[in-house]
């Protein structure tokens, strides 16, 4: 195995996440696309760790941190979406134009 096969796979996954982020209208679907991008980052971190094989497993430790922060992000994000839905009866990001000049 070479390291680049994992990096290119993660690049494809990250680009899919960017595509979903730009094209989706429902805010929950936007968060799903963000999760794809975070997964791609995790694949990169684990692949780099497989190259380095550091004595403290740095790459894997940081992947655990990314997973934790992603869980916090989903919790807060869904709470905000819930609040917006309650106030505006819609979770579509292109209808949230209150602060748009």
């Amino acid at each position, binding site marked *: *195995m*070479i*390291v*680049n*096969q*994992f*990096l*290119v*796979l993660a*690049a*494809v*996954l*990250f*680009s*899919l996440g*960017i*595509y*979903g982020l*730009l*094209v*989706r*209208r429902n*805010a*929950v679907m936007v*968060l*799903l*696309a963000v*999760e*794809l991008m975070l*997964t791609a980052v*995790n*694949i990169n971190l*684990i692949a780099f*760790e*497989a*190259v380095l*094989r550091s004595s*403290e*497993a*740095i790459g*894997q*430790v940081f*992947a*655990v*941190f990314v*997973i*934790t*922060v992603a*869980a*916090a992000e*989903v*919790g*807060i994000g*869904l709470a*905000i*979406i*819930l*609040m917006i*839905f309650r106030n505006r009866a819609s979770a579509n990001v*292109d209808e949230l134009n209150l602060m748009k000049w």
Partner: protein
Amino acid sequence: MNITDWVADPANWVFVILGLAVLGAGFRVVTSQNVVHAALALVATLAGTAGLFLLLSAEFVAWVLVLVYIGAVIVLFLFGIMITRAPTGRDTALDHPRKAWAALVAGVLFVVLAWSSIQAFGVTELTQVGEPTSTETIGLSLLGRYVVPFEAVSFVLLAALIGGITIARKDLTPLEEAEKGAV
């Protein structure tokens, strides 16, 4: 390393199978017209990713991914979908109509990322794959050198939990509060 050696390594066959599963499911996540199907496709993506982690000898992170993501985060997403009453059937208005521009941005980004990683790493081989990182190493690292970020991230999680509850809680209007006080 030439292509014959690459094909001869059975680990690469596992990689190809898992990689195709991950990419196919990831494609479904961003293109599916059904919200629930997209969330379930994310489960398949993450399961394939956990398989890739096992292939890269990161056993602990693989099972953390299964437990935290597939076990908890996806359930949160399904709750979010159900509570916001997102259209659970097929919905053709789920995507913005100007998909071509988004595809162009994603394509350019992929070319940049792939080109730069190929430039940087070339055909660097993974030599020590197959010796799993012990959970002991990760635990000692988390509570040794990385104890401050570890505590910080646990505090972030606690703050996010409390913040999420506070944001999502239904506030009473002044009238309702007065009624409640009267009773």
